[in-house]
């Protein structure tokens, strides 16, 4: 089945076959990244604009790196330096970028649904680099890529996502990817941050840390933002850590071969003990590295590349 999508907006809309295609393409690119000369000419002559209207370090650098490895020209624009601060609308900003002959826009935006909105306006592909609390599809793809590398087939495997699920686009993208791949997903955290509505997405919701971690082969931690405390979502960071922070004792409840993941940025000592973050079960930095290959795959496919032709792109 050939790849036909021009945009990558959500994981929810992808089929399992499409996720497999992205992962296969990413695996091929990862091999290239291991070589001495890491660059391929696949997107030579193409211009990619990273339009980041909300702060980002990792995602933006990984998209930047991915585009460069594919030989595309990259321009990055952030909220502070764009005309949106002068009141220009997203439509106008994006249409100007298109008029400047950009070939693809990578969008990070605080408003959920904004990549879909742009995809309807523009003639060029749009890749979602995180929209509000909605989705962060390349993060979900790189997380599941990392899990597959470590665990193989995810069918029936217990994956627990722990932390601020309510406001997390990473959680939503992972939930969609993992349920399509047949994993058994459990969400855990305080009831204010993990409402029962999530069960509608085909996952288990639990507020009991021990049962949520028991025999999980993956635990994915999400950053706890202290802003949530002032909004009354939990009493204090200290209480959060005492009830839901991952420490050595609690990590022992996991499956013996379990891996520990985190999309970053990490609050050491809040959602995770420092030594666990740096420990041998942690794959946190592998996630970051895989982020380049996965984003190369996404850019390559959205430009019309086909998974099986990666081997010959260089």
């Amino acid at each position, binding site marked *: 089945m050939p790849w036909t999508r021009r945009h990558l907006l959500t994981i*929810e809309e992808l089929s399992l076959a499409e996720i497999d295609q992205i992962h296969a393409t990413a695996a091929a690119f990862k091999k290239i990244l291991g070589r001495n000369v890491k660059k391929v000419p696949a997107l030579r002559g193409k211009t990619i604009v990273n339009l980041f209207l909300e702060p980002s370090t990792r995602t933006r650098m990984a998209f930047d790196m991915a585009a460069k490895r594919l030989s595309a020209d990259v321009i990055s624009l952030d909220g502070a330096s764009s005309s949106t601060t002068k009141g220009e*609308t*997203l*439509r106008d900003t994006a249409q100007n970028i298109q008029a400047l002959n950009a070939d693809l826009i990578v969008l990070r*935006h*605080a*408003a*959920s*649904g*904004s990549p*879909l*909105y742009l995809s309807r306006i523009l003639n060029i592909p749009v890749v979602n680099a995180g*929209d*509000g*609390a*909605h*989705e962060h599809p390349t993060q979900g793809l790189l997380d599941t890529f990392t899990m597959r590398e470590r665990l193989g087939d995810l069918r029936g495997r217990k994956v627990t996502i722990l932390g601020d699920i*309510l406001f997390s*686009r990473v959680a*939503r993208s992972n939930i969609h990817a993992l349920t399509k791949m047949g994993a058994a997903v459990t969400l855990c955290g305080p009831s204010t941050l993990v*409402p029962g*509505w*999530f069960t*509608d*997405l085909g996952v288990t919701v639990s507020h009991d840390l021990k049962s949520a971690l028991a025999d999980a082969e993956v635990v994915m931690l999400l950053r706890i933002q202290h802003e949530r405390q002032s909004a009354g979502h939990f009493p204090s960071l200290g209480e959060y850590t005492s009830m839901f922070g991952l420490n050595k004792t609690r990590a022992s409840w996991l499956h013996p071969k379990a891996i520990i993941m985190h999309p970053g940025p990490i609050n050491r000592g809040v959602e995770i003990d420092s030594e666990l973050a740096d420990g041998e079960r942690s794959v946190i930095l592998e996630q970051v590295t895989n982020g380049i290959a996965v984003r190369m795959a996404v850019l390559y496919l959205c430009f019309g590349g086909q998974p099986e032709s990666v081997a010959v792109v260089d």
Partner: protein
Amino acid sequence: MPALWIQKARIIDPANRRDAVGDLFIDGGRVVASLSAAARKRARKIDARGLVACPGLVDIHVHFREPGQTHKETIATGSRAAAAGGFTTVVCMPNTSPPADNAGTIQFIKDAAQRDAVVKVFPTGCITVGMKGQALAPIGSLRRAGVVAITDDGDCVQSNELMRRALEYARMFDLTVMDHCQDASMTQGAVMNEGVVSTRLGLRGWPNAAEDLIVSRNAILSEYSGAHVHMQHISSRFSVEILRHAKSRGVRVTAEATPHHLALTDDLLSTYDTHLKMNPPLRTEADRQALIAGLRDGTIDCIATDHAPHTDYEKDKEFDFAPNGILGLETALPVSLEVLFRKNRFSLARVVDLLTRRPADILKLPAGRLTPGSAADVCLFDPDEKWRYDARAGQSKSSNSPWHGQTLRGRVRLTLVDGKIVHEATASA
């Protein structure tokens, strides 16, 4: 002006318990019981076979944006949209710019209405100065200037103490207080109904509880003060139960529901279409069913549109940033007929009642009946005609409607205000 002789219409006039095929006579701008033989000869005859003739529709919740936001709508364009939808009497919300919190602004609106409006436009005034919820507006002066109710629509009065005083004060004039029921502390940044769909879409949720709390408060304060409180655009199922209970205690509360809350639910929002963004938001199927049940048993008294025009460029934004509100006047009748008459077995007369006599009676407006001697405000519609609604070709200055481009069933053929034709449908859609 020659007399009008509307022939062989199905005349539905719930206030006079009339639902029968017959003739309707209009002379001197008034409904008359009959015409003299001489007048009959001169009268303009309208063949109304297959059509319903009913009192001109009444909408007690519209935003005509004048003064201050006339790029969205004016009293002139809004009133023409009303006429096109069969409405002959409308009540304007006071969230204009500046807000209608003083007699001068009310006079401005009345002057504009007299000069520009093709239907009858009644103003409301604010409950609080600048709709800021901090100090009472000069309610007595507003009353004298001619407001038919007070409301801070869009910005619910948050202080229970201030609301209590507003009700006690308004009670002195027996002035209705209308309230947009929303606990603002629970809806910070909220853009859609809170629930399964908002969770999936990653949009900030506006919980039913934020409405239920204020509906309860208003019922309690209405009973305590004796004032009449009208709850605007009720959307939550529990609110319907609270109202039912309050009414069973004899509390002076009334309520309205909008055609969009009766017809649409939040699961349509997967497209992030800003034409489905309004406040209160579209809710779940259970809520929608509760609203229909509330209309059926009289818990909810009437239909009101919350006609809220916004320009294309204002709505053409990220969902979070688009303004709340949709047009309602030109689609209210066909949408209400579809939901209530066709899908839920309400009688045609009942639907007409909810759009005419009931809303008029809530605010004691001189409208909503075809009693001989009353103003000849009449709506003539074909309940079965299918037509394609083109919001851009409509009478409103804006076109922000979720029904744009859709085929609707039930079409207004003729609207009369004081016996004068203010809207006549073109032969075919």
